[in-house]
């Protein structure tokens, strides 16, 4: 405060006021309470966990592509594709986990998880467009038309765009909760298309698409079960989940 005393009174007042504001802000609700809640811990953890693969890939591209093996482009394509499916499955797991554990805060993870799947599908698409199709859009269009597995993957990517765009609170209000919920049911179709895309592209070894497909099936059956268990009159109300 010695230095502050040498400043003109008006500026002293300004600094003090800001100092007090800052103190009150840090000691009040948001700053201290948030990290103590479970969601406040879990959400940043998920964020870092889901960001990490893309950071590792970026590091490898810039400094040491051979970290990714002899075929770095293929490795990037496969890793980003894997993480689209993982994050989609995590997104779909939110509601069942919330219902079973009664941990309602879980819902606060859903948008972030969904946006991560869009993040990875964008990287996946760009990898394909760049490394495989050399940024030639007409070449890509011909390939999509000719190859069912690429068409299916591309379709899933297109369907994810409106979901990413309308992921904000503003859009929920703009189009209404019911419409929003109905639109976001597209995620079921997207996840199924994603698994089909993976299944059709493997040469012979269907182990991983089969396993991930089973996880998806379990999650979808969970939902069906939850839906059927809820009383018919509640179904409308629960449609947003």
């Amino acid at each position, binding site marked *: 405060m010695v230095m502050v005393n040498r400043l003109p009174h008006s500026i002293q007042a300004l600094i003090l006021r800001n100092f007090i504001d800052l103190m009150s802000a840090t000691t009040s609700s948001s700053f201290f309470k948030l990290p103590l809640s479970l969601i406040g811990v879990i959400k940043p953890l998920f964020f870092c966990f889901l960001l990490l693969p893309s950071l*590792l890939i970026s590091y*490898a591209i810039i400094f*040491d*592509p*051979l*970290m*990714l*093996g*002899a*075929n*770095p*482009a*293929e*490795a990037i394509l*496969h890793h980003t594709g*894997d993480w689209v499916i993982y994050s989609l499955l995590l997104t779909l797991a939110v509601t069942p986990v919330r219902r079973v554990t009664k941990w309602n805060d879980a819902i606060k993870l859903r948008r972030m998880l969904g946006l991560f799947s869009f993040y990875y599908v964008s990287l996946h698409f760009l990898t394909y467009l*760049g*490394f*495989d199709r*050399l940024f030639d859009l007409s070449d890509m269009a011909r*390939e999509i038309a*000719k*190859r069912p*597995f690429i068409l299916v993957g591309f379709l899933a990517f297109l369907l994810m765009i409106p979901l990413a765009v309308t992921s904000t609170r503003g859009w929920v209000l703009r189009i209404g909760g019911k419409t929003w919920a109905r639109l976001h049911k597209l995620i079921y179709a997207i996840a199924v298309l994603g698994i089909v895309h993976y299944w*059709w*592209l493997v*040469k*012979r*070894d269907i*182990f*991983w698409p089969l396993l991930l497909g089973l996880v998806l099936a379990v999650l979808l059956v969970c939902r069906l079960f939850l839906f059927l268990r809820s009383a018919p009159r509640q179904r409308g109300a629960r449609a947003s989940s």
Partner: protein
Amino acid sequence: MTYTFGPKISSSEITPREIYLSRRHFMGSALATGAALAASSALSATSPVALSFSQNAIPKPSDTVTDRALATTYNNFYEFGTSKSDPARNAGKFTIKPWTVEIGGEVAKPKIVGIEELFKFDLEERIYRLRCVEAWSMVIPWIGFPLSKLLAQVEPTSKARYVKFTTASKPDEMPGLSYRVLDWPYTEGLRLDEAMHPLTLLTLGMYGEVLPNQNGAPVRIVVPWKYGFKSAKSIVRIDLVTDEPKTAWNSAAPNEYGFNSNVNPAVDHPRWSQKRERRLPGFFANHDTELFNGYGEQVASLYSGIDLAKFY
């Protein structure tokens, strides 16, 4: 797709081209060393063993040779697992000693050849492009001798029209065999005239040394104008037969993997284009694929009058 971050290849493992070339030069000058000596030492050690060979290599591509570390860590060898990094990881305990190759079928003089005998042939280095059906490619310095020299010894009869190769099947040492992705043992085949072609190499080594297990030790075939899967690895049987043999990939998916499987940019795999390839370890698939993998001058005559789109 297991979540490993690829086989880690440290930069120290990559042999600089100058050193690699000087090593070949050194070995070329060491030709005086008896081939028999090389053969016996080749089998007595598990670490890479240098081979003696001549370098009248035909044809040498102008392409840059792929680093050994890449060619030995990125392999399709499903007997050791379906991931590209599995063979390098799992082939270590594969025993290649003793090893014999049984040659039979429509031949006048069937025989069982010990691997030592194969190492006594005049070995030569062939730098070939390797084009995988998955649209990636490498350039590999193989060491071996024309298969025709071995086939001549058994005297194929007039009924012999095809050659069938059978790969080793040792469930204890090949973890991939427990998983029936293909009909084991792996089999491949060639027409007799393809098998007798001077470019078809019975291969015992690569990069100046005996074959690493993951690349098909101790003996494999290399047919440079066909997709890689046609080049059977770790061969235990060679049969001369009258009818087109059943082969592993062709049986698994006949619409995707033809018996001929000549490299051809005009005939797509049903699920991807074969027009271009990714020359590893490059990122971009910007290398134009050539008909017969660029060996048309030598082999196109084998297919005159044949509809390559129909008999893919």
